[in-house]
């Protein structure tokens, strides 16, 4: 029998606000010392009252709008009670009864074509702290830096059916939320985490199978492996009766490549949700709603089409650049200076993206002075700086955002010389030193010319207009 996998995701995304959701502690804990950003409020001490950070609601609404959701104009916060050492007040303030956004839609495109994934809801909540297990001392420490950092949880309907779709969907969420600048969505930083709900059923069936949930997945690769493992386990159980499937929460062990049922104690329980009496319902009036809607960015596909239609980029180039808002911004800024979309796109796709790949930096983390990039592109297209030297400058520009390309090229001797006398002299020497190559070229070997050309360019330290060098070189050889 053929089976299909049914997957729904709960994606937790840390919002990129400056401060926490209910207090003024910094929300940027990545890389900080433990318990550096804490106060009596986020430590759950008695007497502190939550005051909603308006930016969190702004970002929550914006995320909802990016995912085509309906925004609830009256949105409320609720308390979810459970005991865990990383939850200092023994309750999490979240949204249970009236989440900020509901009924959204996200379009994804996989090798099988386009598909809509329905979003059930997006709710805002506070994060919990982090437990740090010290194996040497056999103790556990708790770090409250992350406590009360604002999160949104994006709950999808069970509309996904493969690891590939999940990967594309997560990429799409990340792209949309990064375009709106509401979140970093970096799994490696813990700013995006994922619970995978999975069941298996005979293809075409309208009944769902037994669902299992894998919590807190934090890498795409692990998610893909876990989905494949769980799918196989479910099918095996259904076909061969190897085990009885039960609705449960499982933990994925990525090293062993297996999922394990968690102790029932860890999953049982009643969260006893109720409206938080200390947080008044948040009423989103028209003015507020409109201001957020007006602040929405151009959507990635709108940008892509504009790049193709307005700037004449190829589909491939437009696709590459709209993978990341950072690349788009770099492209648009560089273009505004160099006035050649093709050149700007080329430099970004062939040079910047490869430097990022080499340095293992994600495209979104690109930090470069794009205005200076535009100037550098101009220097090359105007024939003032050789391409090889320009690449060196670009590499240095990654490390120093203050570089002024023209001054930098002047200081480093990267400016193309217009001294034809010097070029002729270098060419003459090169020809004299390599009679074999000259003979080969004359004998019809095009490649031989490139070898002499390369030697000349090297001798000139790259500071020569390629066309000029080529003309002088061919002239000189033809004269022999």
């Amino acid at each position: 029998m053929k089976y299909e996998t049914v997957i729904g995701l709960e994606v937790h995304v840390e919002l990129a606000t400056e401060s926490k959701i209910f207090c003024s502690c910094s929300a940027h804990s990545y890389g900080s010392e433990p318990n550096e950003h804490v106060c009596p409020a986020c430590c759950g001490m008695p007497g502190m009252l939550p005051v909603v950070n308006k930016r969190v609601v702004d970002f929550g609404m914006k995320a909802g709008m990016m995912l085509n959701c309906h925004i609830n104009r009256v949105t409320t916060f609720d308390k979810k009670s459970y005991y865990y050492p990383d939850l200092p007040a023994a309750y999490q303030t979240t949204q249970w009864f009236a989440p900020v956004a509901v009924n959204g839609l996200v379009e994804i495109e996989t090798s099988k074509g386009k598909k809509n994934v329905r979003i059930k809801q997006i709710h805002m909540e506070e994060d919990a702290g982090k437990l740090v297990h010290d194996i040497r001392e056999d103790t556990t420490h708790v770090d409250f830096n992350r406590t009360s950092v604002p999160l949104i949880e994006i709950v999808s309907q069970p509309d996904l059916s493969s690891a590939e779709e999940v990967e594309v969907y997560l990429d799409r969420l990340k792209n949309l939320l990064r375009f709106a600048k509401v979140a970093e969505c970096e799994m490696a930083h813990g700013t995006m985490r994922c619970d995978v709900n999975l069941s298996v059923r005979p293809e075409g069936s309208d009944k769902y199978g037994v669902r299992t949930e894998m919590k807190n997945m934090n890498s795409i690769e692990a998610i893909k492996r876990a989905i494949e493992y769980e799918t196989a386990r479910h099918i095996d159980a259904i076909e061969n009766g190897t085990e009885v499937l039960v609705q449960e929460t499982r933990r994925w062990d990525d090293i062993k490549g297996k999922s394990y049922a968690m102790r029932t104690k860890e999953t049982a329980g009643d969260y006893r949700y109720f409206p938080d009496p200390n947080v008044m319902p948040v009423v989103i009036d028209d003015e507020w709603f409109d201001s957020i809607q007006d602040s929405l960015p151009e959507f990635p596909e709108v940008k892509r089409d504009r790049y193709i239609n307005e700037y004449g980029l190829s589909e491939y180039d437009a696709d590459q650049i709209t993978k990341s808002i950072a690349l788009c911004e770099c492209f648009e800024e560089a273009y505004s200076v160099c006035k050649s979309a093709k050149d700007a796109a080329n430099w970004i796709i062939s040079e910047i993206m490869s430097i990022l790949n080499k340095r293992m930096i994600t495209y979104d983390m690109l930090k470069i002075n794009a205005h200076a990039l535009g100037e550098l592109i101009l220097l090359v297209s105007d024939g003032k700086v050789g391409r090889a030297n320009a690449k060196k400058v670009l590499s240095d520009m990654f490390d120093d955002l203050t570089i002024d390309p023209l001054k930098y090229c002047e200081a480093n001797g990267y400016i193309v010389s217009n001294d034809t006398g010097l070029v002729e002299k270098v060419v003459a020497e090169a020809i004299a030193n390599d009679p074999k190559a000259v003979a080969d070229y004359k004998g019809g070997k095009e490649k031989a010319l490139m070898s002499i050309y390369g030697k000349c360019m090297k001798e000139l330290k790259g500071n020569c207009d390629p066309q000029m060098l080529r003309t002088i070189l061919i002239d000189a050889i033809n004269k022999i």
Partner: protein
Amino acid sequence: MKIYSSKLDKKSDKAIVVDDMLLTVDMPTSAGSKMLDGYMSLFEAEAITRLKANGYDIVGKADVGEFSFDLLGETSCNGAIVKDGKLCNASAEILKADEAVATVNLEVNGTVIRAAAQNDLCAVKPTYGTVSRYGTVPVACSGECVSVMSRNASVCREVLGVIAGHDDKDGTSLPEPYEYTSGVRRVAFLKSMTQGIDGEISEKLSSFKATLEKNGVEVCELDDEVICLSNIAWNILMSSELCNNVSRYDGVKYGHRAESFSGIDELYTNSRTEAFGELLKKTILFGSDNLSTENYMKVYDKALRIRRVISEAFAKIFGEFDAALMPACSTLSYGEDYLQSNKDAAFTENFYTAPASITGLPAVAVGGIQLIGKAFSDMMLLEAAELCEKEGK
């Protein structure tokens, strides 16, 4: 019995005692619980900051029952205060001994109104949201209010004027300016709320009614059975919120920690079992049950609806009347054995105080009775209280 008296030697007409539900940085805050015995807060209550800024001296702290939702404070981990065979309240004792001009208390479940009524003192539980709850030990956040008790209404009015006002640190704090009403002309006497009162209370009500009438205030009898449901609904809301609010005391970060345990679950359980008193444990169980998935709609949500119905009933009354007159308690004193025969007294005797707690309406206790008014009628209720005081003198 324990009345913190660290600074009580200082005689001052600006001396204020706060109860042990208000966090202080120079004195411990125990909330009457062994769980928080000796707990030192890192910050102080907003009400205290405002009092200090206005020249008041915080001269000490008054003991409270465990998380201050009992009758008069008898569930304190320091034991009940009993005098001449009667249960007493620490704050009221301090005022009667003239050791402070006023006490500032967190009114959770009627303790303050009852204590004032039984000791011929005046107390005001202000309109919910007019006094910041920042820095108070949370119990039943949707109804509890920082309140004032004094020997006379004018001091209550003065102190309330100092502590009331918007506070950004409290998300439920109302925006200013508050438009306090004044001038009592018509008062509704809520006959249905006189259930269970004894002869003395009955007399107090009659005499207050007479005083009002003598001063040209019209008093009409009114029956409203809906308001009688207040404490049933309030007990559900209060215990549920309490259950959630005290869940933070787990023996891990601060407060009492059991000496013997194996594993985190036992640490929680043993610490809480050892440190929490009987009434608190019972209330936690009740509250937890109310919020369970099975009971939420049947119980908690229904209580929220009743809260709204009661608010509407009062709104209707205050369409015609300036205030509602009713008892503050069933009797003028609780004997030592009262609790033996009334084990759930905290959940029954609040029949009289729950209407104000559940609606957030202001209430004033004076002359052994209670007046409830519409939102922002706090000062008007105190005016009426002054009429009564004049009559008594």
